[in-house]
């Protein structure tokens, strides 16, 4: 081992979480009812075995290449760069994936797990509908029965995605309990899973939930960061100086960040949804303005009130409208490895228009949060520096929302 290796080992210890019990420092773990324990333990065992099996990853890579269309491009944003007047901005084009977002990287991986576990029935939760669509598409491809839980309010807000899921053969179940949004859909999916645990595989859509979900969803999404690494070396000649991604549950962000965690020269910025502003409390930014607690199977930063009730969240983007965040992000925040910030609805909407007008790319409202902060960051950086923004999804699904907010009738 060279001296250099020793130095880097000492300076950046322990990014190889989770530990054997599923914890990232104090976060993560397995907080579910006893009925589900055997199911998550079985999943952890199966995943450990398959993750060590090259054939499983060959199968995964085959699907990513031929079904999803990977690798997704790393795209130099020339006019956005000029407009910001700072660092060179590159866009990782997850919006070009089949089904329109990074979500499909995960649903393919998990559907393959379901197949290996001989589960015949898939369930999923969805907020904006992107994970639901990605789950329904993969279930259709593998011939699996698929049920998607979706908050009653979200079903109204995201009608086109509901129809897409139905076209793909999924049964969309409206959840009318609680705040009738993503967190309630997740509660209902957990209830379904406990009730049908023998034949059912639950595809969680983000890097949250009980262990091993935060780990396996991250591993499936790491294809993003691995590609960016190779593409940066090829196009920029070295690693980028900064990475920017939006953080709801945090799967696209961890997928981008994780392969770079031990590269101290790469700065990382996770952008949460500040909604109407952090000071208004009408936001979805648990890392910026929440505290640690336990929800949906893991300990992490949450939007929780002084009595321990989960608070209602607000974001213009349904995909970021969630009161928790993946436990690995909670850990990376405490370690100081990633800088977590937040962008407001207004900033995201402005970035949505800016990218559309300057680059001819309509970004998802989720990804628009990353664009908003990335543009700000680039402005303060030197022109010889480079920055990668994860364009996690495309905005076709959001045009009705944007039109409505801006008083335009379609």
């Amino acid at each position, binding site marked *: 081992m060279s001296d250099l290796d020793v130095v880097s080992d000492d300076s950046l210890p322990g990014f190889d979480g989770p530990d054997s019990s599923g914890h990232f420092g104090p976060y993560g773990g397995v*907080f579910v009812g006893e*009925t589900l324990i*055997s199911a998550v333990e079985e999943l952890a065992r199966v995943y450990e075995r398959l993750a060590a099996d090259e054939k499983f990853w060959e199968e995964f890579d085959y699907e990513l290449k031929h079904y999803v269309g990977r690798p997704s491009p790393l795209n130099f944003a020339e006019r956005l760069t000029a407009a910001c007047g700072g660092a060179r901005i590159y866009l990782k084009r997850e919006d070009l994936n089949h089904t329109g977002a990074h979500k499909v990287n995960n649903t393919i991986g998990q559907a393959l797990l379901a197949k290996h576990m001989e589960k015949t029935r898939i369930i999923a939760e969805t907020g904006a509908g992107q994970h639901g669509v990605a789950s329904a598409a993969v279930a259709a491809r593998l011939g699996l029965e698929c049920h998607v839980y979706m908050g009653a309010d979200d079903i109204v807000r995201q009608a086109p995605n509901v129809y897409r899921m139905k076209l793909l053969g999924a049964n969309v179940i409206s959840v009318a309990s609680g705040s009738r949004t993503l967190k309630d859909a997740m509660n209902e999916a957990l209830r379904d899973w406990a009730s049908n645990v023998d034949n059912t595989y639950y595809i969680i859509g983000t890097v949250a939930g009980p262990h091993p979900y935060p780990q396996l969803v991250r591993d499936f999404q790491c294809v993003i960061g691995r590609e960016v690494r190779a593409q940066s070396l090829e196009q920029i000649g070295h690693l980028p100086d900064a990475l920017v991604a939006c953080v709801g549950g945090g799967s696209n962000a961890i997928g981008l960040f994780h392969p770079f965690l031990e590269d101290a020269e790469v700065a990382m910025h996770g952008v949460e949804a500040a909604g109407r502003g952090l000071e208004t409390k009408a936001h979805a930014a648990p890392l910026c303005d929440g505290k640690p607690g336990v929800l949906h199977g893991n300990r992490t930063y949450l939007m929780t009130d002084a009595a321990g*009730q989960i608070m209602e969240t607000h974001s213009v983007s349904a995909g970021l409208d969630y009161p928790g965040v993946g436990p690995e992000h909670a850990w990376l925040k405490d370690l100081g490895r990633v800088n977590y910030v937040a962008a407001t609805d207004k900033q995201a909407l402005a970035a949505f228009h800016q990218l559309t007008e300057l680059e001819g790319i309509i970004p998802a409202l989720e990804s628009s949060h990353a664009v908003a902060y990335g543009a700000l960051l680039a402005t303060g950086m030197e022109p010889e520096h480079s920055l990668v923004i994860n364009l996690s999804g495309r905005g076709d699904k959001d045009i009705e929302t944007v039109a409505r907010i801006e008083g335009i009738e379609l």
Partner: protein
Amino acid sequence: MSRIAQTVEHAREAGNKLLIPYLVAGDPDLATTLQLMQHLVGQGADIIELGIPFSDPSSDGPVIQRGVERALARGTRLQDVLDLVQEFRVKDAATPVVLMGYLNPIEIMGYQQFAASACQAGVDGVLIVDMPPAESADLHDELQTAGIDTIYLVAPTTSATRASAIVSLSTGYLYYVSLKGVTGAALTDHQSVGEKIAALRGLTDLPIVIGFGIKDAESAQAMGKLADGVVIGSALVGRIAELPVHEPQTSAGLQHCTAVIGVVRDVLNKIK
């Protein structure tokens, strides 16, 4: 000897089954819950399980979800639940009260403060649905130090090895979840419940009670024969849903509401 241990001993000496109703604290308001608890004791309840309202009750079926929503609509907090137990203790020093709920409200209050406050209020046991033994070490120690029983769930999916570990941490009683599902679901597979309970008997002398699918005299009788007691939640909470909101309860209304517990008491008393 703890209040639960005393209750268990009395029941064993008399050859009686334990009858444990569950209701949500603050549903539809705290004053009504206090009256309901007193009526439940009158109907023959041995132990009362008091649900701590939580915004995301992911192990509960629709009936208890609604009860929780009614309690939260009135702003019921964990501290209110503890105060309620303290008030209940003014008139009833004998009936054990077990708090059942989800971890986050306790996590936010802090384990040490929760254990101390619960002890002071007169809480006898704590059952946290989403805190399996592997994650429970710190809270478990605080509760044991405070003299509060730590009650855990065993499910149909629990392996034998795991059941041994759970039993070793349990005090008070062991709660067997009768079905794969959520509270209030339909209980159909009586035979496998019998087999599981028999296996658990080999692991512990603690009383084993069955809950999750028991809703009437018939199911209580079937499960009462297999175990040391039964928990009845959704059947009671479903009746509480019919109580008037924002007005004082009548004694007749409360009596009608809790009568299901009296009916089950009679059925259990016939199992000897």
